[in-house]
Structures are given as structure tokens and as C-alpha cells.
């Protein structure tokens, strides 16, 4: 039986590492409508000054999200991406 994956809040996902969205808290309709739904791959690409807001690549498009909203989005533990490194 596969191990239950550990969930990470989206703001904790390191820049350049991609992960699958696992869950989005209730009530974040605007965020979901723009495409943040379970099963979609997301990659943080740029951070503003002080790390907020952050720009994410979501299914080929760039979307900026404030931390206040992003912390309600959970992703599966980031897969190591050998090309990007640390």
C-alpha cells in the first residue's frame, strides 16, 4: 500500500520545484477558478521583494498569488528536480 503523501503548504514549496496540488481549502473560489485545483502541477517561478506575492507556473501559465491565499493550497511533497538542483 502506498504511503500517504506528506502535504506541504504552497508558500513552502521552494522556487523552481514542481509539485502536484493535493487540496485547496474551502472558500477560495477565485483561486480555484483561475486553475488551482487538485491534480494540477504547480511550480513557483518568481518571488517578489520579501517573498510576497509569488508567481507560479500553473499548467503553462504564470499566476501571481499573495501568500495569504497560497497558504490555503496544499501540494504533495516536492519531487526533487535534478535539473534545477538547489
Amino acid at each position: 500500500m502506498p504511503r500517504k503523501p506528506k502535504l506541504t503548504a504552497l508558500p513552502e514549496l521552494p522556487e523552481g520545484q514542481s509539485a502536484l496540488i493535493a487540496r485547496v481549502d474551502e472558500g477560495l473560489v477565485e483561486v480555484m477558478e483561475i486553475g488551482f485545483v487538485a491534480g494540477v502541477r504547480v511550480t513557483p517561478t518568481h518571488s517578489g521583494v520579501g517573498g510576497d506575492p509569488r508567481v507560479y507556473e500553473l499548467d503553462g501559465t504564470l499566476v501571481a498569488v499573495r501568500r495569504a491565499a497560497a497558504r490555503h493550497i496544499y501540494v504533495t511533497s516536492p519531487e526533487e528536480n535534478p535539473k534545477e538542483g538547489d
Partner: protein
Amino acid sequence: MTSSAASLSYPASSLSAAVPSKRFRTVALVGPPNSGKTTLFNRLTGLRRKVGNFPGVTVEQHLGYAKGVAGEEIALIDLPGVYSLTPRSEDARVTVDVLHGRMPGTPRPDGVLLILDATNLRRHLALAAPVVSLGLPTLVILNMADSLRSQGGHVDPLALARELGAPVVLASASGGEGLTAITQFLSLAPKPPCEVTLPVLQDVPACQTWAKCISESAGYRRPLPAIWTRRLDAMFLHRTWGPVIFLLVVAAVFQSIFLVGQPLSDLLQYALQRLGALMAGALPGGIWKSILIDGAWNGTAAVLVFLPQIMFLFLMIGILEDSGYLARAAVIADRTMAKVGLNGKAFIPLLSAYACAVPAIMATRTIESKRDRLATILIAPFMTCSARLPVYTMVIAAFVPSRHIAGGLFGSRAAAMCALYLLGFVVAVGTARVLKSSILRSSDTHFVMELPPYRWPTPLSLGLRVLDRAKAFVFRAGTVILLVSFALAILAHLPLRHGDAPDIQHSVIGMMGHAIEPAVAPLGLDWRVGVGLVTSLAARETIIGTLATLYGVDPDSRGLELQEALRRELSPASAVALLIFFALAMQCISTIAVVRRETNSWKWPALQFVYMSVVAYAAAHIGHFVVLHLFG
């Protein structure tokens, strides 16, 4: 078979319906933000269009006319960009109301053009579910098909048409692809979509999953990310260079309004003065000439001269927005704006308020959150607009001796000017904080924004945008200014004595000045400044003309330069009070009118006017007191 006919893909069952029996009259354009909806609207309608406001809301109504195959006219309504038809934001509510025929004054559309970005199809398709479920004849337009192909993407429009039960066309609004097919659709007999299985519309994840499934059935292959967007974003969204470039862009926009807009403004002013002189020459002398030319015409012309700056400002904003940079700028500015409690999108209007609050307030339309938009509208007039400059320049030149400070780096007069700019900014920020933590508190707004790929702005879109704004400025602000100037001019000539105008002291305006005097006397200002404050309600710089006239007719100060007269009549403390009052008061009828129009109520402009006047009056008292007791 022509290529346009081939690109209009109908679901098989509706192919037989190609004989028009009745036709479309009104068709609504629906699509997510950045889907190229407005570009397509511009392409289909050209100049046969008008911009208005939907009644009761602050959302703009774009109505235009497209030409069908036989030259027949079909009304097109460009609706605000939305991701869903859930009536949550004002934009979405308008979209839903128009589509259901519940918007007063707007005919119920008998068809829909659903515009989706083909390079973003998987996410954008989620909007197709609620739109198709409306049951209105719908054409699904996959816009930016050229980008999809050039970046290695693919979609089968016929397969997608089968899934959606509605015809699908690949198009490119900017490149002109698919326009013939769209025109054909508009000329065909309206036919509602075929029955297809749709997800539960309220379930957002279900709609997204459905969109993903049908895009897969249609053989959708996502295009590779645009390489230039990647490269430019590496620079524009860079942690260090991004903000530096941002500041340079802001400075360049600001500077270019003065560099390019100002000479054009001067030219227009010269032309309007010549025109005024010509009209004065044609009129017989007397009261009416004085009222019409010195009053109404001069007052209107003083405002019309800002037209070049306003057009230039909107051209710059248009280039920034259409190229895709504005979205990046909003991301960079968001951090600072968040500290004050505002949305990142508020920074462009606030920036343009340094030229004039009127276009700035119109530019707040890009802010989706109603409360954030209102807060931005309410603080925009605190930004030092160009109309304050003549007043500042005159009073500072009269009272601040020219000295070098900070080792010759700054002039004392420039420093005084900077202090006034800073004063306006600080009060604006303070007001925003107060508003956002009290009556305009909002916690439900999440700053979520799609960053579109960079594109070249098209001259057509830029031209139409500038033209729309110029028209709105000339017509709406122009009518208000003309009426007010006319009224003021008449009041300055009444009551008539033996058919002659009274001297200004005894005119209605003079009496109003004396009525105001008790309020301004504690600041050491006399009735003439009081009259100036009244006339400057039309436009701030009017006070200069007013004071020049009033001091000019007074035998005591006749023959003196205005600066000299001011120095003689006002104490330094009074001058400081006057400057502070002008920095903070809402002395501008056009701003009041535009706030009234944009908020669709008198409540907000009234509140704003009272608030700004009270703050300005109180701050003027403090400034007067401080100068009097510390330096006097």
C-alpha cells in the same frame, strides 16, 4: 471549400441548420481576462461603438456594431472578463445579468461569442460549462490560434465542437484569422447548442476536471511556454532588477507626461486663447462678452488644455497594459500596496493621479475589489496633480527666498515643492490605512492575477482606447466645467445696477467671498482669497486668475505684480496655510463629477469632499499656528 468555412467547425447534428430563417440582433462577448476578447471586439466593430456605464454599477458597457455577411448590423456587447458565471464580483454580476436579460437598458442577447485563449485552453474551458448551459446560440472562439500553432500546440476544433455541442472556430483576433468564420456565424440562423453532459456548475473543481477531460478528448496539446516571455520575466520579475526597472518605468511614464504632454498642452492653450480672442472680437462688448469669454470660455479652456496630457497618459497606460508589463508591475507594487491595505492594481491609478485625478479615477476600473477600488478613488485626489503646480509655484516664488540647501544639491524652492508633494502622499497613505481598517475593510479579496504572455500592442487597440478617453474627457468633464464657469461668471456680474455689472466686491461672488471671510480670516487670509477658494472649486489654478483680477481692481494694490501683492497682503504663516489647504483640499469640480459617475452615487463624492476639506482646513490651521509661534 474556402479556408474560412473549413475553420468553422460545427457539431455534426447542427450542420443542417445553415439556412437563415431568423437572425441575430444582439450578441454578447464572454471570456476570461486576457483572452483577447476586447481585441476581437475592436476588430469586429471598429469605430461603430460607444463606451458607457451599465446603470447602477461602475462596470463599463462597451456596445458596438459588427457587419454581417450581407452588410446587416449585429449589436455586440463586450462584457467584462470573467473566469466563471458565479455572480460574486461586480463584473461577473453584470455579465450574468446581461446574459439573462436582466440589465435595464441592455437588450437580452440572442447569442454568445465565447472567447477562450487557445494557448490556455485547459483552464479557460471551465467557463464553457456555464455559458453553454445558458442555452443561447453560442460560437466558441479559440483565440490566439497562431500562437498555439507556432509554439507546437494542437487542438481539434471539430472534436471540441462535438464535446461542447456548439460550433468552434480557431481564430486570431490580432492576426485577423477566423474573422470571416465569425461573421458567417453572426449571419446564420441562431441555433441553440445541442444537449451535452455538463458538470455541476457550482462545483469549481468538477468544472475544472470536466474542462481537462474535454480538452483531452479534443486532442488538446498545450503549447510550449513562450520563450520571450520567459526571458523578459527573468528580467522584469527579478528580485533585484525587477523593482529597479519598475521604478525606471514609473519615472519614465511620469516624466514623459511632462516632456511630451506639456508642450502639446501649451500649444493647445495657445490655440484656445487665439480662439477665445477671435470669438471676443466677434462679440459686441458688454456684460455678455465678459461672461461668455472671460468667464465661461476661459474656465472651460483652462481644463481642456489638459487633454494632450490625458491622451498621452492613456496611451502610456495602454502600451503598458497591452504589452503585458502592467500585470508584472502590479506584482512588484503589490507588496507596498499590501502594507497600506490596498490591492497591487491600485498603483497605476495613483501614479497617474500625479498628472490629474480625473483619468486616475477612471483608471481604477482595473481593480476588481469594489472596496479596494473605492479606497483608491477616495485617496487619489490627495496626489499632487498638475493643477496644483501653478498655485504652488506662485506662492512659493512669492514667499520662499531662493537659496541653495544641502550643499547646493537642492534649491530651497524645489525643497518646498517636494515637501508639498510628500504631504499629499503621506495623507493619502494615512487615509488609505484608516479606510481599509474601518469602513472599507475587506479580508475576502485575494490578490490572484494571471500574467499574460508579452505581446506587441496593436495600434488599433491603442488608438481606440485613447480616442474613447479623449471623448469622455471632452464631453463629460467639458460639460460640467462649462456650466460651472458660466454660472460663476454670471454670479460675478450680478446683481445688475442700471444695466451694469456691479464692482466685484458687491457682486454675488464678492458677497460670497465676504461670507466665507470669517472662515479664512483666522488663517490671515482675506475675502479675496475666499473668493479664490470658491472659484478654484472649478479648477484649482482658477485662484490665480481670480486673485489677479481682484488685486487688479483694488486701487491699493493696482499696478503691483501678483507676487508682490501677495507678499503685501499675506503673512508667511498665511501663505503656508494657503499652500497646505491647496495640497489637501478637493478643489476640483471635475474630480467630484468623475467620482460621482464612477461610484454612481453622491454619497462618496460628498463624503470625500467633506473629509478632504476638513483635513485641509485643520492642517492649514496647524501649519499657520506652527509658523506663527515657532518662526513668527
